[in-house]
């Protein structure tokens, strides 16, 4: 794999390659370039996950024509699909190197921090929450139990914006969560539950269930569960699987089922007056 990446950099197929390098014992996101091609020997593929496509989006804003290669798991690939649909990245400028994620009998091994939900989050295990909760598992609670639980989870929020900052498909330059007239910055604690419900609604048609938001949350709010429900509703009501392919999102400004083909004007009918 290193050989392929080196070849790409040397041939100019890509200008930069986004991967991970070990720095002081931590695999950190790193940008490999042709000038320092020997750094590729330090390329590390481990269970560490980061939204490299978010870095690619920021870089493409500054240099729209730059060609970027990156490591991509399934979740990164879904995020890239969404970013392509929303015109944040040009598919012609992106090359991906697929890496293993979820374990399967067809693969030798997997490389993702979500592989072992049983071992993750000791505090969460104690309060009965795990990283891989499915909406159906919590839907046997009734309305007031749900509200109790969610209000408890939301009021822990310290408005660090970690969920929004790490999210690979959050790219709005004017974020509603920071907009002066809407939610605004500078006041703590955030308005509960509005802050999180606004974010959830904005995740419709965008969230690709990578789980980085829940990883980033310093107070362990089960965000992935909430956005999984959002994705479920979008799938049922709009019949749209986020990140699945190149189909236009029903949430773009034109809505769904819009064809903008110009219709020919009917020839004007002359009438005898």
């Amino acid at each position, binding site marked *: 794999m290193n050989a392929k990446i080196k070849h790409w950099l040397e041939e100019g197929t890509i200008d930069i390659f986004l991967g991970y390098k070990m720095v002081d014992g931590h695999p950190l996101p790193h940008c490999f370039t042709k000038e320092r091609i020997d750094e590729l020997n330090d390329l590390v593929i481990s269970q560490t996950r980061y939204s490299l496509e978010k870095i690619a989006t920021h870089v493409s804003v500054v240099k729209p024509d730059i060609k970027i290669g990156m490591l991509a798991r399934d979740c990164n690939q879904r995020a890239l699909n969404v970013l392509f649909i929303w015109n944040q990245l040009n598919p012609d400028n992106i090359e991906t190197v697929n890496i293993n994620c979820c374990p399967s009998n067809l693969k030798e091994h997997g490389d993702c921090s979500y592989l072992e939900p049983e071992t993750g989050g000791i505090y969460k295990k104690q309060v009965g929450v795990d990283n891989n909760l499915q*909406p159906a598992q919590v*839907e046997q609670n009734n*309305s*007031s*139990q*749900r*509200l*109790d*639980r*969610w*209000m408890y989870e939301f*009021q822990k929020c310290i408005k660090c914006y970690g969920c929004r900052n790490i999210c690979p498909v959050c790219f709005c330059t004017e974020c509603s969560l920071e907009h002066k007239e809407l939610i605004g910055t500078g006041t703590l604690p955030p308005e*509960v*539950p509005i802050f999180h*419900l606004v974010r*959830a*609604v904005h995740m*419709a048609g965008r969230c690709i269930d990578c789980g980085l938001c829940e990883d980033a949350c310093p107070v362990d709010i089960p965000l992935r569960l*909430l956005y999984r*429900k*959002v994705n479920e*509703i*979008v799938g049922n*009501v*709009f019949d749209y699987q986020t990140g699945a392919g190149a189909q236009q999102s*029903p949430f773009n400004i034109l*809505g*769904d089922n819009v064809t903008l083909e110009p219709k020919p004007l009917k020839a004007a009918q002359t009438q005898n007056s």
Partner: protein
Amino acid sequence: MTVKRITFLQELLAFTGLEGRVHLAWISSAEAQKFVQVVTEFTEKIRALGPNPLAAYSEKWKAPALQAESIVKAALPPGQ
């Protein structure tokens, strides 16, 4: 499209425990009587759901802080 968006909102609110509070109706400006009827019915439905559940939470969360204040006051000698 509107129906889908409102359905989405209703289902999301139901998931977090705030169901039955969003209603969608198509009413023309010439259908005043229908408007009155829809609004009255929905108002009664909301009234039946009781006081705002979110307000109860802000009171509940204030409680530990109030307790702390009363503990501190009890510890100070009278007149301070």
